[in-house]
Each structure stands twice: as structure tokens, then as C-alpha cells.
């Protein structure tokens, strides 16, 4: 009931929120020239680095690639909950479990990889591509 009420009252209930989120996602790719996989691995690697030092509020982690006058600004929005007391070891096997989860949701939405093995493939491809450039 409360939700129905809230939907009635809230501006954010309409389809425009979806439009805005989808646009922001697609424009980062358009502007930066990254494809789905590249953006997903960029996001994942960034999160890994940040999470080594900070505990972040993951749902709000965002990447924005925006024009600002005649320069282009890459903005990483990462609300920090706390600094880690011990710097997290850079260990692939003990990857933060919920960062994986989040990435998976993104990937699924964008019909990219959904299985873990697949994802490793993708990040490898990305590295190879970069090396080739």
C-alpha cells in the first residue's frame, strides 16, 4: 500500500527514470568508444582497486563520461562507507563477492556474458585488444 502511495506521489516512479539510466549507460559507451565488455571490465577493475582501500556503497557506484566545455571528463562516483583498516589483498580468488554480483546483473542486462568463465574470457579479450592497439 505504501508503495502504491509512493508511486502515486513520486516523480521517480515513471518511465523517465529508466530512460535516463539507460541513456547514461549507452552514452558512456558512445562517448568513450567502449563496447559492453570493455565497459564491464573497466567497471570491475575500477571497483576492485577502490575496494582494496575502501568499503564502498556498491549500488551507487557509477561511471560518467561527460563533456565539460571543450574537454571531456571521466567521473567515477563511488560513495565510500569507510576506509578499510587493513588494505585488502589483491587476490583474484578472494574477490569481493558482491562486486561480482553487481557486474553480473549489468552484463545480463546488456546481453553480454553471464557465466564466470565467460567473463574471464571477456576480460582476456579486452586485454588482448588493448595490447594489439
Amino acid at each position: 500500500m505504501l508503495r502504491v502511495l509512493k508511486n502515486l506521489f513520486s516523480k521517480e516512479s515513471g518511465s523517465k527514470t529508466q530512460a535516463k539510466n539507460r541513456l547514461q549507460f549507452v552514452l558512456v559507451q558512445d562517448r568513450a568508444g567502449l563496447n559492453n565488455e570493455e565497459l564491464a571490465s573497466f567497471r570491475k577493475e575500477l571497483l576492485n582497486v577502490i575496494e582494496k582501500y575502501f568499503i564502498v556503497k556498491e549500488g551507487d557506484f557509477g561511471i560518467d563520461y561527460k563533456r565539460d566545455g571543450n574537454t571531456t571528463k571521466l567521473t567515477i562516483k563511488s560513495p565510500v562507507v569507510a576506509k578499510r583498516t587493513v588494505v585488502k589483498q589483491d587476490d583474484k580468488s578472494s574477490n569481493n563477492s558482491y562486486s561480482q554480483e553487481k557486474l553480473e546483473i549489468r552484463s545480463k542486462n546488456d546481453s553480454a556474458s553471464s557465466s564466470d568463465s565467460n567473463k574471464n574470457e571477456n576480460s582476456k579479450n579486452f586485454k588482448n585488444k588493448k595490447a594489439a592497439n
Partner: protein
Amino acid sequence: MSVGNTKTTKLADVYVVTSGKGGVGKTTTTASIGAALAIKGKRTLVVDADIGLRNLDVILGLESRVVFNIVDVAKKVCKPNQATIKSKKSPNLYLLPASQTDDKDVITEEEVKDTLEWYRREFDFILIDSPAGIEQGFKNACVAASNALVVTTPEISAIRDADRVIGLLSARSIEPKLIVNRIDFNMVRRGDMLSVTDVEDILGIETVGIVERDEHVIVSANCGDPVVYNQKSKAGSAFMRIASRLCGENIPIVSKEKSNSIFTKLGKCLGF
């Protein structure tokens, strides 16, 4: 073509009206702002750069008077002053039509630039109606411009294409201004359409005008009579205000998207 007394020695400001996506209102915008500038006493040339899909002539009600076109001028088939058509409604408004039979790449960017240079001495404003897309036709429309009006509707595909075009214009050192066309404030208020603030936020360029979805646009197109002559219409007065801003007048942009509905107020009170 007689040179009016009002024309100063300054060369015309050249604007390209563009969008990437088709059907968002480029031609409507070019015709309306062109007519509005003419009403304000500015000598204005509107150029149809949509070669092969000529439309500006019918929107302005001048289709029966087209003899020569921009391709004829570029290829020196006729003199520049032979191709322009004076509006029936205003002695300050002229149209340089597109060719309907040629292909988009029959003229080069160099030819367009040379062609328009002559007109710059004759007018205060030149508005170029760009074709949809980002290929040769778009490039031809941009080459002579140092200003741009990017038209978009508050829809996802139009905004994405506008973003692309803004990038291409920036690469040409043109800082475009935004026109949000065909907005429906009822939809904005109920959260089913992006607001002007949303669009600005996403595209990151300055807005020069907001035009509501308005039936008068279609009626005036039917009659070949620019909507600005109906100043009681919302779209007509919106285009008039944009023209004033292009003339340097400081007219604040007011958007009616702030919701005043009792529900929102109640919602805010309840802390939603």
C-alpha cells in the same frame, strides 16, 4: 534582391540547425526562427541543405516560386541572387531552396562554403536546415556555420543522436545550443518524459529554447504559414523568444515542468 537599409556591414551569423535523428523538428525550427528573426527586423536567409528531400519551401509556403536552387548556385548555373525567394509575409525573409532531383553529395563542402560566403554580406542571419544523419549532407550543412542549434525531443533515441552530433560539432570547434522540442509537460509531471533539466544534464550544453508539443505547428505547416505569425500559439511564442535570444536579448528560460500538483505537495509533506 535589393539590399535592405537595415543591413549593417557586419557579415551574417551562420547557424546550422541539426539533430542527427530525423523528424525531431529541424525544418520546423529553421522556418519558425527564420520567420521570427525577420519579424524582428533582421534580414534572414534560410537555406535548405536537405538535398533530394526538399521541404523548407513547402513549410514556408513558397513551393510554387522555386526556380533555381543551391546546387544551381554552387555549379554557377545561376547567380546567387537569382536563386533566393522572398517570403510573401516578410520583406526580410528569403529562402535558398534545396535541389529536389540531385543526390546529397553532388556538391562538395568547399562549394557550399564558397556559395554561402556571398550571402553573408547580404544578410544578418543565415540558418541552414540540415538533413538527418551524420554523413555528407550533414557535413555540407555544417561547413559554413560557426554556430549550431541542436534540436532534440525528450526521447531516448533523439537524445542519443543529439549527443553524437554535439560531439561532431565540438570537433569542428562549434559550441552548439540546445532546443528541446515537442515536450509535453503533462507527461513530464507524471514522470513519463525526461524534463528539460534531465536533457541538459545528459547532453551538457546550454539550452536556448523549449518548445511544447503544439497542434498549431501542424496547422501552420498545412497552410505554409510559419507558426510564429500565430503568437497566441505556445510554439509560435516559444520560437519568437528563441529568436530574441539569438539577437542577444536576455529573456529567461521558463520551464513549466515543476510539478504543482496537490499530490506532489502532499507527497513532499509525507516525506516521500
